[in-house]
Each structure stands twice: as structure tokens, then as C-alpha cells.
């Protein structure tokens, strides 16, 4: 009997393997130098991420490991985002390293890189098993990172809250996955789409189980994406955990949740408009959660006094906007989702880097600390203002183009299909809540520029953090004025998910 071994195609996995070995190397280096690695460990981590990016550029596309691992445009696009957000998180961590983390530099950088490896596996997964493992590999190092200052009450509390919520959500997700597996008899996402349709047409009564599975999976990934009502952990964890970790959580972990969501729902459960597949109509459910995210995130952010909590609520709102692109389920929507998370990476990582620089100097994250900062630290105030304006969506920054494409995708979906008329309402609410958002972002800019007294603090920059600020600034202006290359690349995401433009 002929038996065909699955083709491994190990070369497709080269970036992940390299980054994993590099993370081990950093931990070993820190131990071998008897914890005296100073800034070298950090520069090693940055170098590792850059080399991984280069390897990623030379990696081809294709399938490996019996179709469990896939390297396509969507995977590559998200891998760039993961590498970029890890790079910017590590770049903004040098100040905290000098002040607070004296003995565990190797573990800190190693865990960030391990989590990045998990995200990269997740974005390459083509079936439920590797997707679940990738998601766990992403979150377990983040539990440790959130609780990294183990003598600091806030950090440990953030760690425990994140751990309970993360473990609970992964159990919900796993139970939902077990139902999807039971309904389809396969873990392969593309096969699952076909099998569920067949099962549904054969036995007419699977609707309840399918709805239960969809609700469980939405809840499980909704925790990672911080969609209301699964968002309560976000502000607490952002406030308590070290600032670079909060930054990494807000972009890297969120992008990982987004690609997992897109893979399961767009790739695995796309039978959205088909009249015979009525129970599969997850769009309305997700649209409701997106509306809740936009309204709740943007209104509660207004009354925050801690800047990290405020950025936490703002990130809840941003996920609401991104979900419009997924619910629209057309080629423009997928491309817009990719572009949005790309622009969001520059703006949010930059904003958190600015917060980290101020925190290193003043030891405080209260918004009142920022009053009058423009007179003593003009460069920091100007860049921070640009990041906030991009998050609010002011032209000509990349955040504006991202919101524009997302809303355009929503309108296009509504025009294309009369059954989706509620997309007009979704976009309308999104436009309205954007106005609230401008209020609280502008409030910080007002504090920095229009305070009567100049601030008593004058921030000092270290070289990597300054680089992160400049990368963020350059990214926002360049891709705000000239978004075509990224948009062209991101339009490949749609074809990776089998959506024909």
C-alpha cells in the first residue's frame, strides 16, 4: 500500500524557528553574563526581530505539515505587524529596564519573543488545532509579562486578573471548537466550511449546536479582542502591567485575536448570506458587540484620569471600528482591516512609548502629569499629539485613511446586499462615536499645550525609545499620505481568505 508522507516544507517555518532559537539565546546570554547584560540583551532582541523580518521577506508561500501550516499573504501581513509591535515594545522598554528590572532582563525579552513566535504560528495556522496552540503560546508568556514586577501590587494584580480571564476565555473557546469539530468531523478550516454546510443540509436540526458553538467562540476570542461585554479586564491590566507590556498587549495580542477571529469566522464559517444557512448568521451578533465597543470605549474613556486606562478604553473602541471591516466580509473590508491594524500599530505603540518616556522621568501615569509638558519637552509633546490625532482619525495621518477605508467597506457591503441594510446604522454609529473620541484625545493635547504653568518635568530620551517615536511618526505621515503600497499588500488578505473581489 502506498502511503504518502505529508510534505513538511520546513523552510516555510524558518522565521518562527529562528526567532524561537534567538529567544532561547537571549535568556542563555543573560544567565551566562551573570545577569550583567545591561542593554546588550535588549539590542540583541531588537536585532533578532530585524533578522526575522528579513528571513520572512525571503520565505515563499505554500502549505506545510499536511496543510496545518500555511504561509500566505494574510499570514505574512500579520507577521509583519507582530514583529513591528514587538520591536516597538522592546524599544520603549529600555528606560524601565534601567529603573525597575535589574535581574530578569533575559526573561523579559525572551518572553516577549516567545509570545511573538506564538502569534506568528497563529497567523500561519490553517486548522483549529494549530490555531488553539498558537493562541495559547501567545497568551501564556503574556500572563507572566503582565505580572513581571512581582513586588509591585498593581502589576501582580494585573497579572492575576489577566490570567483568570485569559484561562477562562481559552476554556470557552476550546469548548466551542469541540462543537465545531463535532459538527464537521474535521479540524481543517476550509474543509470545515464545506462539511458544516453538508451536515446542515442533511440533518436540519443542528442550528442550536451551531449557534452555541458560534457564541462560545465569539466569547472566547472576544475576551482576547476586548469586545464588550468581555472587556472589563482591559483597563485594569493595562494600568497595572509594565508600560511596554501594555503596549504589546494592545497591539500584538489584539492583532493575534483579530487574525484568529478572521480565520475561524471568515475562512471556516463563511456561509453568511446563504438563505439555507440562517444559523450561520454571526454578522449581526458581532455587529452588536462592535457597536457596544465603540459606544462604551469612547464614552468611558472621557472620564479617565490615568493615561494607560484611557488608552485601554480607546483600544476597546478601536477594535469596534476594526470589526466593521470583518462584518462587511468583502474584499475591501479585509484590506481595510489589515490597513487599520497597521496604522493602529504605529499610533498606539508610539503613544505608549511616549507614556513610557514620561513614566520613566516622573514615575506617574496620571493625565495631570502631562499639563504644561509642551514648554519643557516640545519634541515629546508634538509626537504624542500626532499619535493621539491619528488614533482620533484626523487627516492627513494614517489613522484617517484607515477609518475612511473601514467605513467605505461597510457602505459598500450595505449597497451590495439589501439584507445588510443595518450596515448603514453600524457605520453611522461609528461616525458619531468618532466625535466623542476626538474630545478625549484633544483633552490631553490641551493639557500639554494650553496649561498656564510650565511642567516641572523635563523628559530625557534614550536612543531606542527615541527611535520608536520617530518610527511611529514616520509611519503615520508616510502611510497617511501614500497608503497605496500597504493597501495593495493588504488586499491579498481577502484572497487568502477565499474572498474574490
Amino acid at each position, binding site marked *: 500500500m502506498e502511503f504518502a508522507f505529508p510534505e513538511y516544507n520546513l523552510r516555510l517555518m524558518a522565521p518562527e524557528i529562528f526567532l524561537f532559537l534567538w529567544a532561547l539565546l537571549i535568556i542563555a546570554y543573560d544567565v551566562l553574563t551573570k545577569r550583567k547584560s545591561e542593554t546588550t540583551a535588549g539590542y540583541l532582541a531588537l536585532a533578532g526581530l530585524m533578522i526575522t523580518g528579513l528571513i520572512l521577506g525571503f520565505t515563499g508561500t505554500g502549505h506545510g505539515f499536511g496543510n496545518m501550516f500555511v504561509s500566505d499573504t494574510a499570514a505574512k501581513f500579520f507577521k509583519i505587524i507582530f514583529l513591528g509591535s514587538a520591536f516597538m515594545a522592546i524599544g520603549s522598554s529600555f528606560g524601565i529596564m534601567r529603573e525597575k528590572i535589574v535581574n530578569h532582563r533575559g526573561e523579559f525579552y525572551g518572553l516577549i519573543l516567545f509570545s511573538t513566535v506564538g502569534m506568528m504560528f497563529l497567523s500561519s495556522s490553517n486548522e*483549529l*488545532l494549530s490555531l*488553539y*496552540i498558537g493562541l*495559547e503560546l501567545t497568551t*501564556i508568556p503574556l*500572563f*507572566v509579562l503582565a*505580572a513581571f514586577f*512581582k*513586588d509591585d*501590587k*498593581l502589576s*501582580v*494584580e*494585573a*497579572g*492575576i*486578573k489577566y*490570567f*483568570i480571564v485569559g*484561562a*477562562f476565555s*481559552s*476554556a*470557552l473557546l*476550546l*469548548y466551542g*471548537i*469541540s*462543537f465545531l*469539530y*463535532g459538527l464537521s*468531523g*474535521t*479540524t481543517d478550516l476550509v474543509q470545515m466550511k464545506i462539511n458544516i454546510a453538508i451536515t446542515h443540509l442533511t440533518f436540519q436540526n443542528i442550528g442550536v449546536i451551531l449557534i452555541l458553538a458560534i457564541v462560545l467562540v465569539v466569547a472566547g476570542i472576544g475576551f482576547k479582542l476586548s469586545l464588550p461585554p468581555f472587556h472589563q479586564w482591559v*483597563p*485594569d491590566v493595562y*494600568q*497595572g502591567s509594565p508600560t511596554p507590556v501594555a503596549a504589546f498587549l494592545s497591539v500584538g495580542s489584539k492583532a493575534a485575536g483579530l487574525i484568529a477571529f478572521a480565520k475561524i469566522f471568515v475562512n471556516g464559517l463563511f456561509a453568511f448570506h446563504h438563505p439555507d444557512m440562517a444559523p450561520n448568521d454571526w454578522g449581526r451578533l458581532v455587529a452588536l458587540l462592535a457597536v457596544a465597543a465603540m459606544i462604551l470605549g469612547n464614552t*468611558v474613556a472621557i472620564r*479617565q484620569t490615568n493615561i494607560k*486606562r484611557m488608552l485601554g478604553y480607546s483600544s476597546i473602541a478601536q477594535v469596534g471600528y476594526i470589526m466593521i471591516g470583518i462584518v462587511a466580509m468583502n474584499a475591501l473590508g479585509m484590506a481595510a482591516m489589515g490597513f487599520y491594524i497597521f496604522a493602529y500599530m504605529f499610533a498606539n505603540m508610539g503613544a505608549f512609548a511616549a507614556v513610557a518616556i514620561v513614566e520613566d522621568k516622573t514615575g506617574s501615569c496620571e493625565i495631570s502629569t502631562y499639563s504644561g509638558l509642551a514648554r519643557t519637552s516640545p519634541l515629546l509633546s508634538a509626537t504624542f499629539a500626532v499619535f493621539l490625532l491619528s488614533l482620533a482619525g484626523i487627516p492627513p495621518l494614517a489613522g484617517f485613511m484607515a477609518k475612511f477605508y473601514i467605513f467605505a467597506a461597510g457602505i459598500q457591503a450595505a449597497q451590495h446586499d439589501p439584507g445588510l441594510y443595518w450596515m448603514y446604522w453600524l457605520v453611522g454609529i461609528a461616525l458619531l462615536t468618532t466625535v466623542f473620541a476626538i474630545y478625549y484625545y484633544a483633552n490631553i493635547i490641551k493639557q500639554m499645550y494650553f496649561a498656564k504653568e510650565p511642567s516641572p518635568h523635563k523628559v530625557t530620551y534614550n536612543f531606542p525609545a527615541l527611535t520608536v517615536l520617530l518610527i511611529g511618526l514616520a509611519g503615520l505621515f508616510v502611510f497617511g499620505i501614500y497608503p497605496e503600497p500597504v493597501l495593495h499588500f493588504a488586499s491579498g488578505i481577502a484572497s487568502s481568505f477565499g474572498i474574490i473581489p
Partner: protein
Amino acid sequence: MVPVSAYLIVAIVLFGIGTVGVLISRNMIVMFMCIELMLNAANLALIAFSRSLEVMDGHAFVFLVLTVAAAEAAVGLAIVLAIYRNRETINIDRFSILKW
């Protein structure tokens, strides 16, 4: 032969006990045990489906889930230990410095 629905009912009861336990328990360790119960309910459902559909993917899945649960337990107990050292309690109601 026991029908697959029997296993699924046991699984859903286990999952329900676990979920309710996480939501109402105030002790960190008990919450943690309830999460393990939820994972095991999912494992039971995976095995039952795998057996009745006669495909082996579910079996492989369960082994990896067990590994993940072990890793999660290692990290989780370490964090519980860290918070016990600086608060001297593991009651979740007392962890309320962070709130809006």
C-alpha cells in the same frame, strides 16, 4: 454501546459546573480548579465526537490540550504565589486596587 449523546451531556454538565464555579467562587485556587474542569469538559466532548465520527484528530487535540493545561497551571500557580506573598490573601474580592 453508550450513545455519544450521553458523553455530551456529561461534558455539558461538567462545563456548567466549571463556569458557575469560576463566576461565583471567591478563592483563586478554586477558580483555577474550575477552569481545569471546563478544559476537561471540552476534552471529553472532543473524545466523544472523535470516537463517534471515527476520525482521530480529536484524540491528538486532547493530548495537546492536556499539555497546554499543564503549562497554564505552572504559570497560574506561580502568579497566585506571587500575589499571596505581597497581599497575604487569595480572595479575589480583595484584589481591587485597580478599578475605575
